[in-house]
């Protein structure tokens, strides 16, 4: 009797035994620094003396909301994220559908399609920089050969963001492809066969059978791509440094510029806070939508 009571008491603690090590870890290496940094957004800390900032309340935020560069970076971030998601997910889904059914050489094809994700950021930025190069890059050689002249892929105000999106899509589509592939391969073949035998053509099969099965995967992938886009730094910074004229300056790029070039840690943290809120808002929307769908499904 007593034995089971003790065991019961202990049992209640078991989940905490599991969750505590990871959470403590995250507290130390992620959330505590984050909290400190957020506090810094309320100060005028300079990076050169991180411990000597003075508390200035919402001063940084006032300046932030007054600055047109801020609104530009907000717009750029959103635009970048949306484009990356739309094209990245589209390409990923198409790739997954294309190689879903087995064919000769499929492993090799799948391997090649993963290159974008496997190649490290620094290496990717170097090769894409070279391909986009105005005088020596292969893209301009092709367009010149085709008679449509040369383009400033990374230097023209109109093209720079699109060029960055292209690189991002190249990097992100493989991940989406993997996630969707996995979901696709969980669609029992019998179901698909059955639908086809019943006379449904490819498109209807897709809509009725395949699509619902991959919807959660696509949603998850979309959410991750969106959120990662808000966070992505290496590629953008290495390719355009946020230029030209700020057309590729996402919030994260602004953080880096404000902190390390403007030397203002406090202000940079304010930028970071906004980015964080934005990403959380997106995540919250997704989360709530999920909850509502779950509730609806379990009625």
């Amino acid at each position, binding site marked *: 009797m007593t034995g089971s009571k003790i065991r019961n008491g202990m049992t209640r603690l078991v989940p905490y035994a599991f969750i505590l090590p*990871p959470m403590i870890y995250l507290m130390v290496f992620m959330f505590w620094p984050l909290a400190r940094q957020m506090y810094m957004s309320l100060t005028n800390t300079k990076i050169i003396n991180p411990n000597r900032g003075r508390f200035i309340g919402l001063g940084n935020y006032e300046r932030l909301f007054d600055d047109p560069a801020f609104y530009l970076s907000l717009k750029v971030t959103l635009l970048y994220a949306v484009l990356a998601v739309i094209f990245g997910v589209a390409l990923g889904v198409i790739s997954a559908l294309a*190689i879903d059914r087995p064919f000769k050489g499929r492993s090799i094809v799948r*391997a090649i399609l993963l290159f974008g994700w496997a*190649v490290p950021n620094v*290496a990717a930025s170097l090769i894409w920089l*070279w391909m986009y190069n105005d005088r020596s890059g292969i893209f301009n050689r092709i367009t010149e050969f085709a008679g449509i002249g040369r383009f400033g892929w990374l230097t023209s105000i109109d093209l720079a963001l699109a060029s960055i999106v292209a690189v991002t899509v190249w990097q992100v589509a493989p991940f989406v492809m993997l996630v969707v592939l996995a979901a696709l391969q969980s669609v029992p073949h019998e179901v698909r066969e059955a639908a086809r035998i019943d006379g449904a053509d490819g498109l209807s099969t897709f809509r009725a059978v395949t699509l619902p099965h991959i919807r959660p995967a696509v949603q998850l992938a979309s959410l991750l791509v969106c959120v990662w886009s808000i966070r992505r730094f290496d590629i953008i910074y290495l390719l355009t440094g946020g230029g030209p004229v700020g057309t590729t300056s996402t919030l994260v790029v602004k953080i880096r510029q404000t902190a390390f070039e403007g030397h203002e840690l406090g202000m940079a943290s304010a930028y970071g806070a906004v980015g964080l809120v934005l990403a959380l808002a997106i995540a919250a929307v997704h989360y709530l939508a999920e909850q509502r769908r779950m509730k609806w499904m379990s009625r």
Partner: protein
Amino acid sequence: MLKVLRYLLIGLLVVLAGFPVYWMATTALSLNSELYGTGQVIWPQLQNLPELWRELGQVPIGLWLFNTLLIAAGGTVLSLTLGSLAGYALSRFRFHGKGLVGFLLFMTQVVPEALILVPLYAMFITFGLLNSLIGLVLANVGFSLPVACFVLKGAMDAVPYEIEESAIIDNCPRFSVLTMIILPLIMPSIAAAAVVAFFAGWNEFLFASTFLMDRGNWPASVGLASFVGQYETPMSAVMGAALVFSLPAVVFFLLIQRKIVAGLTAGAVKG
């Protein structure tokens, strides 16, 4: 007809995905005079291989790759360990603060590295972790732990409770249930989570370039970036190094890609 279209599509996708890497190889095998002047040759010129080898020999790329491997592997092991603990807790238990934990774990995915760079730097000085690979691993795991957790949780969700039920009734400690029953069943997902964590560590640049002072500790990402010197960009050598840097990751990927695809099944569907 449809089949032909499908093969055309696949061909197009392969070109889109593979061309940049092909171009890396071609550029690496070109001479500077061709690259900067007369026009790059579009076929890989294998006869330039010895020259490329010589240029690469001038940088400690072996050491860089070794450091990168340590960072990536260390991060993977730690992420999987902590991630499986968290995943199991979220999958199998109900407890106070569960929602908060899930939220916090997700939040890590939206935190930009640049934002915690400086406080982390200060903290590492206190712990004496600056300029060490271990410090880098610890910094990276903060970001890959939650991903591992979610992937593994998804997989665990798909494992029916009945499988552990009998073990639990027999008073098997939950921890052993995790390690001896659950984990072996979700190997594919573990592989998937491992890949994500490995790549994150392999790729990482910002923390590495800030926290490391000794050139001997540089991972390849920092080493490669240092190549873009103040005075000149030896493009062929840079591309050669970039290829060498990318290859191991790609190979590793190829080796476990079957498992990955299967592994993400359990996660994504329930996602």
